[in-house]
């Protein structure tokens, strides 16, 4: 197990390096010149040049790349070009916020989706199954920013049950933070519900058709016992890996929800950094998202291995 994790971590480092390189290339394809972007169209060229020299953005590509790689290794991205503040200082807030929201959304979605998926599999092809499948499909077919807007208008403005903005003032208690984050978490939840439920349904069906389930049924176990002790563990595997891939997206890709609820998470940070060509900020945020993605997939594989010892064998090799 340990060698496996080490190997995975080493591979993850390689991936991170690739990721950082891709981002670097991406940022350099962007046409604007950094100094100009920061100082604006009105600043005189000399000021722009001076800023570029100061930031090192006029160095040869290779030198800039070298700096980025050094930053990746030392994990020190220095100051953001645009706001001249330490990158980690800027990122810590959004990272923490994204983490909270992603976790909240997961906690809200996974149990219900898993239960619904299992229920649908049990009632396969019956009305309740069809209803769940269709509801899941529908819920995951409406983009989350639409869902979010609808939820904000209905539950925030019309009924006033929840705050319409996710951004809570500092010092807000955890319980009321949950209230603030409820609507954005719910709108993400609605999208992922269908996804996870369908996955769970498929893997539950597979588990229900497996020989070991037949053995269990033949023992005379009741259906719920069979589901709990035999099917659940086996069906969770594929679902967990799907969820783990989603975690990465939840961190960096939910900019729609962030926009609708004015929640300053990693998604917006990436967008702004990319637009401003703020390379240190962009690199750092993408690397963070990459780390989150890789950790969550690693964690998922470990959980799967824990659930299913057979998978451990594969890990070992």
């Amino acid at each position, binding site marked *: 197990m340990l060698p496996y994790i080490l190997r995975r971590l080493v*591979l993850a480092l390689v*991936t991170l390096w690739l990721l950082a390189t891709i981002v670097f290339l991406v940022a350099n394809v962007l046409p604007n010149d950094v100094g100009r972007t920061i100082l604006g169209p009105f600043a005189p060229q000399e000021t722009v040049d001076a800023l570029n020299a100061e930031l090192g953005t006029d160095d040869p590509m290779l030198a800039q790349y070298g700096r980025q790689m050094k930053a990746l290794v030392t994990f020190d991205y220095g100051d953001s070009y645009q706001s001249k503040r330490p990158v980690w200082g800027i990122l810590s807030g959004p990272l923490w916020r994204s983490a909270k929201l992603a976790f909240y959304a997961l906690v809200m979605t996974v149990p219900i989706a898993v239960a619904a998926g299992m229920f649908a599999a049990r009632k396969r092809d019956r009305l309740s199954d069809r209803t769940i499948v269709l509801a899941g499909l529908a819920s995951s077919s409406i983009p989350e920013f639409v869902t979010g807007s609808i939820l904000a208008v209905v539950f925030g*403005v019309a009924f006033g049950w929840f705050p319409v903005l996710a951004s809570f003032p500092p010092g807000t208690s955890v319980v009321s933070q949950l209230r603030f984050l409820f609507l954005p978490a719910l709108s993400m939840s609605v999208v992922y519900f269908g996804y996870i439920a369908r996955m769970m349904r498929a893997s539950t069906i597979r588990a229900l058709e497996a020989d070991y389930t037949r053995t269990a049924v033949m023992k005379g176990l009741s259906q719920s016992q069979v589901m709990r002790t035999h099917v659940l563990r086996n069906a969770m595997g594929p679902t967990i890996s799907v969820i783990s891939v989603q975690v990465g997206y939840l961190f960096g*890709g939910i*900019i729609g929800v962030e926009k609708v609820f004015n929640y300053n998470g990693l998604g917006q940070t990436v967008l702004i950094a990319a637009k401003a060509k703020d390379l240190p900020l962009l690199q750092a945020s993408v690397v963070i998202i990459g780390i989150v993605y890789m950790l969550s997939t690693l964690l998922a594989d470990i959980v799967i291995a824990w659930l299913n010892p057979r998978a451990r064998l594969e890990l070992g090799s």
Partner: protein
Amino acid sequence: MDEELVSTPGSDQVVDLSRSGPVTMQMTVLQQAAVERKQARRERWQLLRRRPGFLIGAGISLFWVVCAVLYDRITPFDPFDDLSTPLARPGGEHWFGTDQIGRDVLSRVMAGSRDVLVIAPISAVISVVTGTLLGLVMGYYRGLVDDVLSRIVEAFLALPVVLVGLLALVTFGSSEPENGFLRWTLKILTLGASEPVVVIVVAVLFTPIVARTVRAAVMAERDLDYVTSARLRGETNLFIMTREILPNIVGPIVVELTVRIGYAIFTVATLSFLGVGVQPPSPDWGLIISDHYSLMNGGIWWPTLFPALAIASLVIAVNLIADSIQAVNDR
């Protein structure tokens, strides 16, 4: 997925003939086999036709296809040029109301299917093609090649969606690239779609996902004996990958394609919402939503809700069809 590759028990099997079997019997048995095959296909089709899911899905898709093809003849108003009172409520002349500059929402939603129905399938096809190539190579060679490509694929998977969208948009600009070579490459790649950049972005986003699926399928195939047999008669790796293995993983690839079309519709909408997708005055659904969603709090829900429902309906329809086909094949 694999189920599709294996014939259904007791259905498609043709009768065995031993050497001592009379010749006449052989013929009848074979004819019977051919008839049975045809019959199986017909039965499958009939079964499909009886599935409500398939009917609904096909009906919705057909509606949108008709809209996409004939929109300039069947929309109640001109989706681009007919201006009337902005933000008129649904009802009366404008069943779905009007948008903020007074165009008929119904007409725009109908016309919007054209972009979606071009962009989504094309980008899905491109991603499936490139993803399949990648997946083939990764799954077939394994080892170092797989390790290296897997890293790249994973790196792309970890890349935030917006970043890819933004990159492409800024690189190529919203309209066509100036560079003639680039322009033509894009044009050819995207079959001349009106929004080549969006097509490419979606394709890039989906390629690693497809590659992973295909890789898994190839891994399952490459250890089968027919591959060994091909190697024994001295086939090249390229031949084995493309001619031997590829036809056998068409099943999962087709499923992946339908799934990707569904997600492409969704992703195009999201990109438009983020301002890195389809350009105005296209009646693209995501764009209509993105232009109007902020009006919802003022009670102006129609220009947001109707295109959203359109997206949902098409995504659901595509998925219903895919599900039904899979279910029927599984029987």
